[in-house]
């Protein structure tokens, strides 16, 4: 696992894309094929589930080191990563055994199904023979989750460069339902499995946010305008009588939506659709919070399907009767989509409505009103645009409604994890409730590194109380919080829940007595 350890170290220690590519390139030259496959699997979300629970790992490391639980928690708070904390707490290994990444993965997969005692023996043995960096990686592999400083797009670029291939082709080749045990690395990257797998989705075409005045985009008639929905973007595949539903996170969610699956099965033709899964009830699209209630459930009961019925708004057609039509212009693909629907009028599939405004003014008005139908704003797609791979500037734009904002005061801070461990990066904000404060949102992002350092200093100097890793701070710093939606919620003390809250800016010009009042905020709810 030494080569893999070196790769992770090198990826960690630079922000420069060129050096990251170089690090991957070195790994591709040095590592055995099985390890390369695992790299790909781990980086593209095809990792196995957690094989050993964090509770067990925590118990074993406390037993091995003799440190009390509270001290373990303090250590964890300072490191911000469980796998790393464990590795740092353990004593130096007494021997070294260089096994490959795939050998470790195979052992982990086997031992994952064994009783706890066997798991323990295996884990302790590994802990005693691996130096820190590899021990840390081993712990990560046990947990099934691994984030390093490389996006899947970065990895795809590195692979494309190494094998002198087109990045889009590589992206397609490595998507889908392969497992590290059943394919050969180079064949996979070169797309040899691309046609054999019926489930293979296409990379999603993504849009950038409109940056300038929409008038500058030219003639409105060149653009197809649709509502931008806040649900789960998905790809709906029907090939040779089999159906697959992929989420944008490249997760196969077919069985999470039985009603959509069954509808797809009843259609004729082979096709791949791009669309949005939404909860639709009482004649209207519902807030994302409703859809959320259906996610990550083991079984979808009839009651859930009755209470939270879903529909699909279809945006695009990517493949028809086995032919990839992504290069055809939007206007043609839309036409084909309409024809496909005409022949298969099945709920819960609906065509995404194309808005036909007379001018930009009218469209602007529609955008302002879009929150009223629970839409996030509008999408503008050039009628001549192909269905791009990933995010390309110019052909597709998202034109979201301006976020709602409130002014709130910082009341709790907690140290971040990963890259930001050591700084206070996780904040809880409060607004006024009469003469008191009531917490309204947590936010992790929106500040620059420099501002984070400044806030951290303030927290260090103004901490009032300490609850484990959380600090209560003097309510003094005012921030403008932006969010996409707001609804009543019985689970929150304030009585409201914000969707996608984030820090818009630090209002150094405002004092704590200038923050918003909860009663005023409730009036924002539609």
């Amino acid at each position, binding site marked *: 696992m030494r080569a893999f350890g070196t790769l992770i170290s090198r990826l960690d*220690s630079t*922000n420069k894309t060129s050096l990251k590519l170089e690090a991957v390139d070195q790994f591709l030259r040095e590592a055995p094929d099985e390890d390369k496959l695992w790299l790909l699997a781990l980086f593209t979300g095809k990792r196995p589930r957690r094989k050993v629970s964090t509770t067990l790992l925590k118990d074993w490391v406390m037993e091995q080191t003799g440190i009390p639980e509270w*001290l373990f928690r303090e250590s964890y708070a300072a*490191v911000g990563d469980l796998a790393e904390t464990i590795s740092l707490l353990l004593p130096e290994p007494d021997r070294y055994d260089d096994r490959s990444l795939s050998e470790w993965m195979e052992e982990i997969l086997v031992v994952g199904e064994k009783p706890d005692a066997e798991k323990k023996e295996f884990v302790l043995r590994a802990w005693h023979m691996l130096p820190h960096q590899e021990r840390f990686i081993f712990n990560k592999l046990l947990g099934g989750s691994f984030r390093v400083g490389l996006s899947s797009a970065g990895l795809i670029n590195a692979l494309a460069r190494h094998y002198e291939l087109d990045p889009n082709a590589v992206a397609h080749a490595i998507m889908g339902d392969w497992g590290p045990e059943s394919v050969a690395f180079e064949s996979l990257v070169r797309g040899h499995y691309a046609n054999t797998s019926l489930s293979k989705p296409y990379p999603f075409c993504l849009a950038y946010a409109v940056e300038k005045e929409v008038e500058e985009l030219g003639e409105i008639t060149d653009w197809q305008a649709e509502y931008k929905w806040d649900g789960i973007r998905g790809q709906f595949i029907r090939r040779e009588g089999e159906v697959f539903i992929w989420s944008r996170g490249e997760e196969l969610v077919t069985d999470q939506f039985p009603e959509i699956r069954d509808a797809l099965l009843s259609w004729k033709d082979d096709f791949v659709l791009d669309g949005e899964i939404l909860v639709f009830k009482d004649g209207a699209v519902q807030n994302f919070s409703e859809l959320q209630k259906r996610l990550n459930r083991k079984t979808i009961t009839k009651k859930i399907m009755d209470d939270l019925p879903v529909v699909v708004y279809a945006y695009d057609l990517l493949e028809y009767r086995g032919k990839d039509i992504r290069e055809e212009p939007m206007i043609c693909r839309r036409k084909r989509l309409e024809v496909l629907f005409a022949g298969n009028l099945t709920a819960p599939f609906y065509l995404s409505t194309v808005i036909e405004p007379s001018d930009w003014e009218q469209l602007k008005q529609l955008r302002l009103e879009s929150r009223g139908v629970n839409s996030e704003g509008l999408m503008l797609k050039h009628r001549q645009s192909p269905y791009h791979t990933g995010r390309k500037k110019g052909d597709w734009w998202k034109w979201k409604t301006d976020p709602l904002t409130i002014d709130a005061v910082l009341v709790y801070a907690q140290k*971040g994890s*990963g890259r930001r*461990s*050591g*700084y206070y990066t996780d904040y809880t904000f409060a607004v006024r409730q009469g003469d008191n404060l009531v917490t309204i949102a947590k936010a992790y992002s929106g500040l620059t590194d420099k501002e984070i*350092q400044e806030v951290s200093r303030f927290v260090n100097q103004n901490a009032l109380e300490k609850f484990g890793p959380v600090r209560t701070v003097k309510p003094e710093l005012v921030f403008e919080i932006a969010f996409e939606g707001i609804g009543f919620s019985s689970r929150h003390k304030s009585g409201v829940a914000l969707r996608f809250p984030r820090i818009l800016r630090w209002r150094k010009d405002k004092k704590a007595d200038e923050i918003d009042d909860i009663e005023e905020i409730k009036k924002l709810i539609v």
Partner: protein
Amino acid sequence: MLTFTNSGFYCEPGRFYIDPWRPVDRAVITHGHGDHARPGMGSYLCHTHTVPVLRSRLGEDIQVEGVPYGRLLSVNGVKVSLHPAGHIVGSAQVRMEYRGKVVVISGDYKTQDDGLSTPLEIIRCHEFVTESTFGLPIYNWTPVATQNEALRSWVAGNQAAGKTSVLVGYSLGKAQRIMKALESMAPLHVHASIGRLNQAYESAGVTLPEYKVINFYEDVRHLNGAVVIVPPSLLHSNLLQKIPNRAEALCSGWMQVRGARRWRSADAGFAISDHADWNGLLQTITATEAEKVYVTHGQTAVFARYLNEAGIPAGEVKTEFGDEEGPESIPAGTSPDKMGDA
């Protein structure tokens, strides 16, 4: 004997302060870092090697007396002596004895022998004042030889790739230690703030490896393969950008944690510290056989609690000593001279 005041540790019978942070008449100084040696004191007493450092940093006109390790002084009836703390060259623990009771203020210390500073001396005492900068069990340093080997192999790798190695470390202590570790490997260039402190040490008879002071306002493109040592404030500065084809490494105990390494986004991070690690703190405290331990700057709450649970009565003391090696001392933009180095 010892009271904790708003100005710092006060030895009441001796009528002097140790590392005070507000101006007082008489100050005993453990070492030359900015948060322990502050300006404005009526008189300073410190180890001989620290004298020129204080003069360089606080002004030539300060009234300062230097004493060697182990020399017994009597200050208003209190027996006072300085003993090696192993933190940096000239760093000292202050031992005070009055009416049969011994109190030791250790300042900052480490148990590892860095090859340059006089190694820590264990002093048996009744009360021991300890730092706790790295007072968490996740902080355990590799042996100095291993650290130096890692530094040298990193520099060798850069040399092979035709790169200039830029090492970032505090100008007082860490910089000299890095110089020592890389001695004779490559020409050593240091930033002016480090050069000044090197001179101060040399004037006190400390021998340092050969070095040159780098002038960033002249052409620095000829440095290929060389080693450049700069203080943390220069990281991400425009000055460093002038060195083409460089690789940057941070040398700090905080580099032990991956998140800290990634946050600073240098090309490498070496967990090399002039502070004691977790085991170093515990071993030292145990060896002093102190009946009462006072925990200052760093992980005070955690460390004091741990000591108490381990049967060593300990209390937290709030001081104004910086978290000198702390994450916040690293941002760019501060002048090197104002840094609380560690």
